[in-house]
């Protein structure tokens, strides 16, 4: 319990200190933690950009999760965001949405050449004039003796009131070197191709890549990364972090 309080406190410090807008999501493994596992998670992002309208945009997510079966893990997220307007004036932190996330591991880890899972999320928006969002992902992972490579193939669609955008697509990739349980250096790549029907040109798509550090200290899994925007629509830089306590 003490650890849970510490994790939430760290998350709050991150939010109150220095970033919604371009939240790079985490790269999801298809491996589910197991039946009966309880989890508390805090994650966030902070964007740096020379455009006043994007600089200092920040998000913070708080979640509780539960392993319903050996193959199905469900989580509820509350998301808070704060960002600048067109003139760079920061808004107050606001509660933006509530997310129900589900991951399903298709078969046992190591059973086949590659591990695979499915992901389904419903995002209920609490912002004025914003649509809800339905997101699906195919989760793939290949474990080698010293490396783990994870890929997410993403499709999402605005739904319910205020829905305007058609189906959007994206990809996320993570590779890590399994140096020790505590420290695993690697990198991540996130791509948001925009609406599929529009065939958005590269300069309107969001592409981010950068170094990341992963590990586990006692029962806490951590991720820390810095993503460089490599397409004009992405923020110049983004710090992202994630802490998960399992018990």
């Amino acid at each position, binding site marked *: 319990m003490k650890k849970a309080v510490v994790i939430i406190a760290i998350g709050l410090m991150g939010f109150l200190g220095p970033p919604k807008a371009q939240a790079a999501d985490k790269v999801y493994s298809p*491996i589910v*933690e*197991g*039946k*009966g*596992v309880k989890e508390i998670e805090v994650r966030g992002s902070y964007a740096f950009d020379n455009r006043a309208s994007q600089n200092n945009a920040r998000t913070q997510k708080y979640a509780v999760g539960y*392993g319903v079966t*050996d193959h199905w893990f469900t989580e509820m997220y509350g998301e808070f965001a704060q960002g600048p307007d067109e003139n760079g004036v920061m808004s107050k932190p606001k509660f933006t949405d509530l997310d129900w996330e589900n991951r399903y591991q*298709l*078969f*046992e*880890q*190591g*059973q*086949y*050449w*590659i591990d*695979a899972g499915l992901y389904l999320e419903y995002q209920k928006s609490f912002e004025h004039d914003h649509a809800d969002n339905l997101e699906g992902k*195919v989760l*793939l992972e290949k*474990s080698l*003796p010293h490396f*783990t490579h994870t890929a997410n*193939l993403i*499709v999402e669609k605005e739904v319910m009131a205020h829905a305007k955008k058609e189906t959007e*697509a994206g*990809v996320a990739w993570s590779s890590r070197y*399994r140096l*020790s*349980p505590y420290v695993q250096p690697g990198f991540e790549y996130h*791509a948001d*191709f*925009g609406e*599929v029907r529009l*065939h*958005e*040109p*590269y300069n309107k*798509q969001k592409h981010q890549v950068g170094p990341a550090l992963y590990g586990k200290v006692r*029962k806490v899994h951590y991720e820390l990364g810095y993503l460089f925007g490599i397409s004009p629509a992405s923020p110049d830089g983004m710090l992202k972090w994630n802490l998960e306590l*399992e018990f």
Partner: protein
Amino acid sequence: MGNIVIRFWILLGLGILVWVPVLALAAAMPEYTIAIKEHHFDPSETIIPANTKVKLVIDNQDAAAEEFESFELNREKVVAGKHKIIVFVGPVKAGSYKYFGDFHKDTAQGTIVVK
């Protein structure tokens, strides 16, 4: 360009999901059972063949949950109380690979010996 990339990834993903199970080896896989009793693994040492994928059945006979964890084997899975899970290991080279129960580290220790 973006559309081609999207279609490539979607087709690759669907292809893998459909074909990996189909292409998996149908040969019988060696199977071993490791029980968890009073926060100990039983047996604490399991000998498996080198360069062969094996199936471990982790049978938690305790009421409390345990986590089967091995960094060397890249496995981490919780076994609920009075519950069984399946863990696939290998193929790995000859050697000793430690594993432990993360919820009761003091007592739950074991080794997979690969020969």
